Each structure stands twice: as C-alpha cells, then as structure tokens.
C-alpha cells in the first residue's frame, strides 16, 4: 500500500501526521510562525489548535516552503516552521536550493512523507518507490536535513533546529490517514489573523 515504507534503507518508524503536528504545536511558546501546506498538513495544523501565528494554505500546492521562506526573511528574529507533504514538495523541488542559498537559520521545514496523494485517493506519488526526500534536500544544499526515526527523535530534531545556524529540514514517514480537522476556508480572515499574529497589523 504505502511504497515509501518498503524502502529498507529508511530505518524510520511510520508515524502519524496529526500526532506529530500536535507534538510540534505543544512546543511552541514564543509565537513561532507555522505555515501549513495544502490539504492535510493544514487540516491537522488547524485540528492541533488554532493559533494566530498559523497560516493555512488553501491552494497553490507546493508553496508552503516558499511562503515560509518569505516570512523567515521578513522576520529573522522569529522561528518559522513549515509543514509540507511529499507530493506537494515534488511540485516545487527547486525551492529547496533557493532556501539553501538564502540560508535563513530561523526556518524549520517538515516534510510529511506517506508516499501517496492521500487526499485524492491515496495514489502513489511518482517518487514513492524510488526517491529519498532527505537525500534530495541534502543534494540541494540543505545539509542540516534528517529523517526522524520516531516521535522522540522528531521532537529532538525540532528542539535542535531552534538553535541551528542554518535552515533545518526534517523528514517524517507517516501513515496514510486523512487529516483530522477541516480548516475554515476563509482566505482573507486567515491572512489577516496571521498578520495580526505576526505583529504586522493592528486589529480594526
């Protein structure tokens, strides 16, 4: 079913997106920005508890990391997390080398890799059986990239990224469960709340 899990080279546990997202959100104490990618990554971010510093991307598949890069460049003192699916990242692999070149140390990218387009019917991605996202990221110049072996390792990598001197990319293998919540699809409010949360705007 999940071809990505069959690759023996990856000695990593198959985890769950909502569980990992909840673990991440529970760690956030300093108004860190979190960018959720299209579909399940932002659904689970929403379900983990809405924060004014969360941005939920409702379209533009593949742009979670570029949006996060923009936030990270605009606010270098703020930690920025981005949650992206493996299928989404495949649409915009070029962004990895852009991030590596700009090298914002306040950016932590998390790739939720289940090897399938879960939301469209769990069809395997073209990369599922052959490609290794972390090897790709390292090849793009993101040397601080690693698979999380299990939940504790994921939390350790997240903590490590907070004091990293370069951008961090964390790969997590996940199951093929759908997202838990459903983001309210109101782009203007999402954007305005996010800007309030980042201290860019004052409420009307």
């Amino acid at each position, binding site marked *: 079913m999940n071809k990505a899990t069959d690759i023996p080279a990856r000695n990593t546990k198959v985890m769950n997106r909502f569980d990992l997202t909840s673990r991440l959100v529970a760690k956030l104490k300093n108004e860190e920005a979190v960018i959720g990618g299209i579909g399940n990554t932002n659904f689970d971010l929403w379900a983990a508890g809405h924060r004014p510093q969360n941005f939920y991307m409702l*379209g*533009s598949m593949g742009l979670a990391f570029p949006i996060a890069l923009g*936030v990270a460049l605009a606010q270098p003192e703020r930690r920025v997390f981005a949650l992206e699916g493996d299928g989404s990242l495949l649409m915009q692999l070029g962004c990895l080398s852009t991030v590596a070149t700009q090298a914002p140390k306040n950016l932590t990218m998390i790739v939720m890799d289940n090897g399938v387009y879960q939301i469209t019917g769990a069809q395997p991605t073209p990369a599922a059986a052959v490609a290794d996202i972390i090897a790709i990221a390292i090849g793009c110049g993101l040397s601080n990239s690693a698979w999380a072996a299990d939940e504790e390792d994921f939390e350790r990598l997240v903590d490590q990224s907070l004091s990293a001197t370069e951008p961090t990319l964390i790969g997590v293998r996940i199951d093929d469960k759908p997202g838990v919540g459903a983001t309210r699809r109101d782009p203007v409010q999402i954007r305005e709340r996010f800007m309030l949360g980042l201290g860019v705007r004052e409420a009307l």
Partner: protein
Amino acid sequence: MAAAEESTSPQTLQEKALQEKTLQERTWHGVVLQTLKRHDIRLVPYVPDRVLTTLIKNIHADPFFTTFPTAREEEAVGIISGAWMGGMRGAVLMQTSGFATLANVLASLAIPYQIPLIMFVSERGTLGEFNYGQSLVCRTMRPVLDSLAMEHHTATRLDEFEFIVDRSIRQAITTQAPVALILSPLLTGGKVFEK
C-alpha cells in the same frame, strides 16, 4: 528671515534635486529601481530575462534590496506573499512565458488572500518576436489577467512610465490586490533576433 531664504533658495534646491532625479531615472530600469525604493519594496525575487539584465544587475548592486533568482515564478510569488504577511514588501520580475505558469497561484493565493503582489513582466512574443512559441504564450497573458479581473498596464513610453509604476504600486498596496506591469518592447527595446 528673507535673507536666509535667499541664501538657500528652496526653488534652486528643488530644481537641482529634480535634475538629479531626472538623470537617475532617465532609463526605464532606473525608474523601476527608484520607484521600488521609494515605496520601500526591498525583496525582489526573479526568474531572469535578457531584457531585465541591467535592472537585475543594478538591484543586486544596491544593498537596499534583497534579491535572488528562484527556480520558478510561482515560487517567487510564494516568497513575496510570505514576506508581505511578515511585514516586508516585495516585487517579482519575470518574462511573459513565466507569467503563463502563474494562473493557479494567482487564483488560489494572491487574489483570494488579498496579497498586493507586484509583478514586472518583460513582454516577449510581440513586435519582432522570432520564436513562434513565445508569440503564442504571449497571447494568453492578457486574457488570463482579464479573466481574473486583475489590474494590469502595458508600459510603452518612458515619459509616463514613472506615473504608471508609482500609482500602480500605491494602488496594489492600498487595495491589497495584485498588479501586473507589462514592459513592452516599445519601452525596453525588447529582444531581437540578431543571427
């Protein structure tokens, strides 16, 4: 008081400043650079184009700007959108064929989220185009902009260019809506077949 005014005649100072400004802004790319600065637009990701070469070079040379190439135009749109929400203004430089890759991100990100995305599009495909594919893709640009009811202007003359750029940037920011500024070969000289 009167004597003091005479010694530093504001009229003369104004004229001098105007002259300097005219010298700086006598090229289309000088107008773009100075107008971006005036509006505090610091972030300029781009996918390069031959016509944009001098502008890109000058923006790189100016420490005011953070500028870099992206692999795709929509990536640059994502970066600008994130930066805007984080309080930093930006603009994207691209070519006609690059604009043709943007329909999805305009319709799903820039417009519905009300991002003042400022785009400079170097126009290929017309007035001496030598590549048939470029002329075809050029014909898709304005219909896409019109179908999304997006503000766009085609700049053809240097004497009105600053007005167009300045007012369009103001409007994009105050109305929180994207704008495309199409740089016609009539303005830039375009790219011509020379072999």
